[in-house]
């Protein structure tokens, strides 16, 4: 079970959190302006990297906040977490 450092509450066990998918995936500024293929791509295409992955988590059973997390999908190690709008750690 992962130990996830919530940017507000500190390290907490994984079961207090809910996974929120890939991070830094903003919808198009004007959805009506993109064509169907581009919209479909936004909806359904995701990277599946081996290694470093930026992803969203929410401290659902804690402070309730969404935040971003850099996790290695091979080792499950977490390089760091950061608040929305902040830059990812190196």
């Amino acid at each position, binding site marked *: 079970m992962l130990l996830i450092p919530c940017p507000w509450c500190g390290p907490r066990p994984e079961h207090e959190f809910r996974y929120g998918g890939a991070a830094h995936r903003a919808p198009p500024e004007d959805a009506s302006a993109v064509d*169907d293929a581009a919209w*479909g791509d936004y909806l359904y295409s995701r990277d599946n990297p081996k290694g470093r992955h930026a992803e969203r988590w929410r401290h659902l059973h804690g402070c309730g906040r969404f935040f971003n997390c850099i996790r290695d999908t091979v080792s499950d190690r977490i390089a760091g977490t950061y608040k929305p709008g902040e830059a990812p750690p190196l």
Partner: protein
Amino acid sequence: MTQPFRTAAGGRIDRQRPVRFSFDGRALEGCAGDTLASALLANDVHLVGRSFKYHRPRGILSAGSEEPNALVTVDRGLGRVTPNLRATQIELHEGLTAISQNRFPSLRFDLGAVAGAAAPLLPPGFVYKTFMRPASFWKRLYEPAVRHAAGLGRAPGQGDPDRYAHQYAHCDVLIIGGGAAGIAAALGASATGARVILCDEQAEFGGSLLSEPGVTIDGWAAPDWVREAIASLGDQVTLLPRTTAFGAYPGNLIGLAQRLTDHLAQPAPGMPRERLWHVRAGRVILAAGAIERPLVFPGNDRPGIMLAAAARTYLHRYGVKVGSRAVVVTADDSAYRAASDLHAAGVAVAAVVDLRPEPVGPVVEAVRALDIPIHTGMTIGGAAGRRRVDAVRLADGQTIISCDTVLMSGGWTPSVHLLAQSRGEAWLSVGACAGAFGLATCLRDGTEAGGSQPGTFAVAGLPEMTPAALPLPALPHPKAFVDFQNDVTTKDIATATGEGFVSIEHVKRYTTAGMATDQGKTSNVNAIVAVAAQIGADPAAVGTTTFRPPYTPVTFGAFAGPSRGDLFAPIRMTPIFSADAVPEDAGGWRRARCYPRNGEAIEAATARECLAVRNDVGMADASTPGKIEIAGPDAALFLNRIYTGDFNSLEPGQCRYALLLGEDGFVRDDGIVARATGDRWHVTTTTGGAAFVLHHMEDHLQTGFAGLRVWLTSVTEQWAVIAVQGPRSIEALAPFIPDIELGAMPRMSVREGHIGDIPIRLFRAGFTGETGFEINLPPDSAQQVWDTLRQRDVTPYGTDAMHVLRAEKGFVIVGQETDGTVTPDDLGLGWTIGRDKGDFVGKRSLSLPELSRADRLQLVGLLPAEAAMVPEEGAQLTEAGQGPSVGHVTSSYHSPTLGRSFALALVAGGRSRVGARLRVPMASGPVEVVVTDPVFVPRPPERPFAPTSPLPLLPAVARPAPVARAAGSVRLAALAPATLLSVRAGPGAATAIGMAIGVLLPTVPCRSVIARERAALWLGPDEWLIQAPEGSTGLEALARRAPADRPASVVDVSQGFRALELAGPRAAWCLNGFCALDLDPRAFPVGMCTRTLLGKAEVVLWRIGAEVFHIDVPRSLLPYVWACLEEARLEFADESSAETPAVG
């Protein structure tokens, strides 16, 4: 002397305390301190089991958890049957009942042993290759027969009556293994003041030191040094004997399985049988030692053949001679010590056979000095004997030596299993598992790993030895066993490599070497060596198989822990109780299916309830759907983006039905959006979708639409809901509601007022299509109102009737009519989409061509040709004839109003098929149905109602608070109700609110501020929970007025929670049975508060004293949380005397 092979003196067993036990019904006697294995050996019992595949006689190979052969079933009575236990780990206790396995009809005369004679017919892959056709025979004939012939112990047939506990623990240093290196590491870590857990799978700490009475450390005999060292460890060290570290998981979480009562003849009541520890460790020191390797030679599996070090352990630790006449075969120095020691104990040592050409060194010379013949450069060519070895033939083919015992050593394999599982977390290995074999080195490295200066220890009495190289591989032979537990021989390995399996992972799966319950602890390296020999590779190049948990088998009970029965999953309880309700658990709640009268069947009760709603008046407990209070000046804008509707035009007091879509345009939830007052909105969700909708809204608020001045508060538990529905509903309610003119309320409107003197939020709405109301009221008053209305002949109806009533009107249930691929238009609900509003979640997807195809599945009604036939929900629909599916039935009922069956369905291009005939293929044959409009019962005309005079409610009935079991070291109490406010606000507003209510809202995460009788708990960066004594009525208004120019949300949630207090020296321990947080006072100091999980319930946990925890529990979850805490306290229940109140 009843134990012929017990030595006269020595060992750690107590000869003055005989212990009676039975093995296969035979009454035997051992000594206190024995294991089952040592007691059997003391009684000259060597045949203890039959092998997995060939049913070969097997004895005891080892003295530890690596044991592959001596597996037994222990029956503790009352259904407490545990198969596949290692006799080497079972502590003897009075009355122990052990039974051998995999033999029929008996251990000595086993019919399955003919399989051994047929061994050449049973090569690897035999089962897969042979029992292939016909395929249907596999399940009925082949598999049961194979399972009967091959196998280990049998699974118990009865439910397990024992209790199992879980415990979450945190430490700076976890030390796995309590032998020399592990104890030294504990000494080193303890000296630094770190929090330490030291665990060992054995009953006693000390490991191999317990078998070394002749060795001294700092002048103490080794076993005595162990005792002194353990006693010197500080309070910060938690000692866990009988505890196996079985798995390493991400985040340095280590699973420990602790056996608490199996070694006791009379366990204390309330004590769990096993405890599964979830240890979160800062770092881990692995001191798991090493396992001696068997040697591979024909017949090496016969009873009487065992590991050399095991023989020394039986002699020195248990006072047992493992035989009368031994041959030692070795590739390693350490077996020479067994030869010397057994000789000294009076066991004849016939010969030492050494694979090495020129063994030298002090241990070799010591054996030479005893005139024991040493055959060098030699191995054993075969072992003979039926139920026990009686002779060995050396590989020269000439020399035959009679014996009843063979001691073997192929060197030592470090126990790196857990290190390999850890995938490189913060771990250190010390001692033999790190390849260090000198005792002084192990001790020094241990102290250093623990965090102290490397210790120096004066070690004496241990001769110098040279570690063995890997022995030469044995030749392929059908009786030279590599893996004892799965009956894999060198010939099987050669077959596998000959068939092209060269990867060790493939060889493992093809031959099953290393796949038994022992996970190949004694066999993996020998298998690697055998593969390497066959393919001409270096063993190091062959590599190892992946190490996976568990290290040794863990019971299902330990994994399940307390999660069984009522604690398996929380069932949420509504505040309304009716003794006559038929309960059903749905969506996490306990709900009433129906309320039968005088022994009515469920169908009859449901029909009566349906008709009461259609023709008179009924009421339902509708408390379970989610409710969210939304506040803030941008609420309408926010709701416009979340729901399909347009809420700009919604006036205070109005409601609107709305759909919530995903970005993909598909329906995710539905509900009613009500504008209660100017900027306060009351939104309902489905019962099952409540948590999702709040999460979805928070997601968009926090990340998508950041900057909107909107705040969300769940009020699902703050409001109970009684739905009063039917043409007579106004008449039934009006006498009790003085301040709302019911008849003047338009459909889909909301008013605030009172029922009796109870404040309510009254909705003119419902799920039945009748004139009706939903009374939102404080849960504490719900029973009183319910009972009053029942007395006034309002018919209660349950979920079964609710389903029929809504389906008759074509109302959908999200999750029943929808499956995540259904658009609003598919449901005929395109009208819910606001025309002139801007973007909303899902809008872009609705214009995708796929989502507007004419042949999409659309909601329609179905009328079966036979009025009595109710098609199955989920059944497919076809056109007349065969053809592919054109849709499926989503809801299907008998309608008492129509006097016939009807159904809802999703049908391809359904709306254009109205009037067409389709077929439902059912088990009893196809059913003809006609496609119809989904509305079966039209809206009736509004009925006029007679004016009524006011009536009083029945008196309120107080429900008694639960009373906790007495337990002195941890007290549980339900606290008096309090005023609770949920505050959500930005920083400026938070300060203003704090000033207004007289307690500052903390900005430090997870901290609380107490001022006068009020407390403010930080729950999130924009969220606080304010606690004040019950009846602090002005507080909410005070807080709301405060931030005039800085909007915020203040919502009374007093009714939504129940407060518990858990106090006493063991309070934190009990919480950690269900809560994974670190509750050490340094990690969770007084004043800390947080939302967290207690079991599967979300609670607010607040430490208000060193040993006092305040827990706010959602009221529906109180029974579950209470039961969890009582379960955790059960261990301490017998300490009630400390709690006896003083009389007078």
